[in-house]
């Protein structure tokens, strides 16, 4: 290095600039780097009922970015640096190829925002066994039961957790007789199954279930159609609708034959995040997110935020950037995640579902937060929502 001193000043400056540009690791010099990949696939835009709400195409990634910023503030003090690399697979692309070519062996932590079947295709790649996937998008119960994978953690509440949250609220309100209306998609059937499971669990009575088969453009005939459709022989307390895409559910409210509240995928909705949520410091993150992105935080943003924050929390506590210590810590009793829900969040070891309160919201107000007071559990009341340990269908955890 003797020669460096002798370099003319200009060359010296060029040398420094070259170092700065060529090596991003210079910025992280002396810091432990935690590399996180974000893998998503562009979805086909599905038809919507109305143009009231803009279609948001970047749900998820902005939450991950905010969490990187938050984690790096901690990292400033702990000499850790968190980085996020984004991989966006086109609609007709192949997420498995992208993983194999660009993520495998390079990233131990991968936040995924993928469809149900694609999530497990990626999880089953050989190289993915040496990584931990943070599923920030699916709500499928199957992925947490029969189709569970030991290298996947699930951030968003499953359909069963959502249905249980609604059921607890209905039980509290003594709305015990339900009329279940089911749309015609595969997801609607899964949602309806979750509702039926909750009805059984909380001893509620589904007086009738009906498939909604009417045309989607019900704008002209909804008034008459819904009145006829909801005229039942047996009376009911509440109409529970299963319409995840929102193709008809909005038409039910105020148009039923008898005046009955609508809950489920429309009306009173169970979700992990909503713009009306402002308790427990949620206002702060709502503000930070909106200031950064110019829009409200959506559920997938929250899922991705929690995923990156979970990695950040575990990396900070274990002072590590390696898979095994971080995974062990995430699944241990010591792990607690702050999620603006008034209680600490953690992963269920039997199915890797993040246990968390579920918000029950109307479009412009937060109605309740489940678990509803009075639903007790010997370990944590959060486990009154969804599949508890004795009920799990997840095999790998039973083998352990």
């Amino acid at each position, binding site marked *: 290095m003797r020669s460096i001193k002798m370099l003319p000043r200009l060359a010296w400056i060029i040398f420094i600039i070259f170092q700065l540009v060529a090596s991003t690791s210079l910025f992280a010099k002396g810091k432990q780097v935690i590399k996180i990949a974000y893998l998503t696939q562009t979805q086909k835009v599905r038809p919507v009922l109305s143009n009231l709400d803009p279609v948001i195409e970047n749900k998820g990634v902005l939450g991950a970015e905010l969490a990187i910023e*938050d984690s790096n*503030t*901690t990292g400033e*003090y*702990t000499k850790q640096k968190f980085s996020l690399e984004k991989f966006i697979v086109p609609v007709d692309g192949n997420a498995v190829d992208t993983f194999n070519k660009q993520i495998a062996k390079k990233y131990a932590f991968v936040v995924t925002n993928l469809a149900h079947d694609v999530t497990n295709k990626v999880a089953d790649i050989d190289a993915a066994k040496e990584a931990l996937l943070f599923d920030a998008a699916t709500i499928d119960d199957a992925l947490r039961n029969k189709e569970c994978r030991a290298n996947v953690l699930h951030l968003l509440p499953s359909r069963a957790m959502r249905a249980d949250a609604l059921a607890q609220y209905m039980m509290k309100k003594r709305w015990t007789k339900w009329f279940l209306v089911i749309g015609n998609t595969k997801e609607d059937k899964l949602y309806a199954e979750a509702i039926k499971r909750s009805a059984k669990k909380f001893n509620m009575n589904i007086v009738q279930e009906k498939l909604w088969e009417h045309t989607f453009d019900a704008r002209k005939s909804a008034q008459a159609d819904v009145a006829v459709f909801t005229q039942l022989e047996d009376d009911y307390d509440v109409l529970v609708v299963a319409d995840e895409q929102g193709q008809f559910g909005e038409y039910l409210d105020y148009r039923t034959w008898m005046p009955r509240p609508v809950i489920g995928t429309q009306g009173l909705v169970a979700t992990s995040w909503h713009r009306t949520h402002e308790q427990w*410091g949620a206002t*702060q993150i709502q*503000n*930070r997110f909106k200031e950064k992105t110019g829009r409200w935080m959506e559920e997938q943003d929250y899922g991705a935020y929690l995923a990156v924050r979970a990695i950040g*929390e575990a990396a*900070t506590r274990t002072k590590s950037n390696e898979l095994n210590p971080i995974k062990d810590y995430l699944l241990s009793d010591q792990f*607690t*995640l*702050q999620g603006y829900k*008034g*209680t*600490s969040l953690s992963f269920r070891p039997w199915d890797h579902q993040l246990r968390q309160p579920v918000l029950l919201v109307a479009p412009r107000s937060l109605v309740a937060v489940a678990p509803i007071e009075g639903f007790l*559990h010997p*370990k*944590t*009341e*959060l486990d009154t929502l969804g599949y508890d340990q004795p009920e799990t269908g997840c095999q790998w955890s039973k083998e352990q």
Partner: protein
Amino acid sequence: MNKQILSAILWMLSAAAQAETVFVTLEKDNALAVVDPIAGELIKTVEVGRRPRGIVISPDYKVLYIATSDDNIIKMIDTETMKEIGTLPSGDDPETFVLNPKGDTLYISNEDDSRVTVMDIAKLKVIKQVQVGVEPEGITVSPDSRWIVSASETTNMLHWIDAKTNIIVENTLVDARPRAVTFTPDSTMLWATSEMGSSLSIVDAGTKQIVKRITFEVQGVTKDKIQPVGVIIDKENKRGYVALGPANRVAVINAKTYEVEKYLLVGQRVWNLAFSPDQKRLYTTNGVSNDISIIDLDNLTVTKSLGVGNYPWGVAVKP
């Protein structure tokens, strides 16, 4: 008969000596409750501005500083007349702040901006804004005026700010969502509560390392309901007290052995704590049950709860 009169006079004298006023901010009522804790009465409720939360009394007990969060301002209230005598610019959404022992400098947590604002009260001037972690909340000044410690909820850190230079010189990582911090009277130890970590960390002010981590267990209350918030230590450094939020308990901790001696059942979602001037009583604000609890510290029993208004948040006491 004479004895009775004598005892009556003695009682009146002692009552006069004990006379004190408790001020409680009522977040949802936009008001301040004025309480006579000896008589156990709510004397009056005074309008103070929108969403009052943090409250601090000046060392001479003449001025109350109240953060009215939705007005984005800190108000100064005369403790005799209960009239507003001035305002301090606080930055957006002020919640918690603290006065130094001299009473001339205010340190404010600006939660949305991740900053601590240092303000000269006499000059009404911001001396410095110190960048800290995300969502700073709890803040305290050591009794020897050497340190300001700010706790950031999302960064999970205690930031040690040198009071002379207003620069962060050290950071201590604590359990999830640190909420409140306070020093022992001799300034050697810092106690910090972690709301989501369900713990209390005792940090050595010399090494800035955690020397003891205390967790709480209340029979019949699940762990996730135990959310430590307010913390306070008596002048003799005998005992510390921690408000456990929705566990509806105050933990009594031996400040020497760090053993939890007792859990006192108070109102719902107990939040902030204050001593009576003689340190014989502890006052707690209970956010959900809309009351304050009065604890007799000689006997460690809750003697009274007193309805004060909606969402009692902060508490300050004047002799």
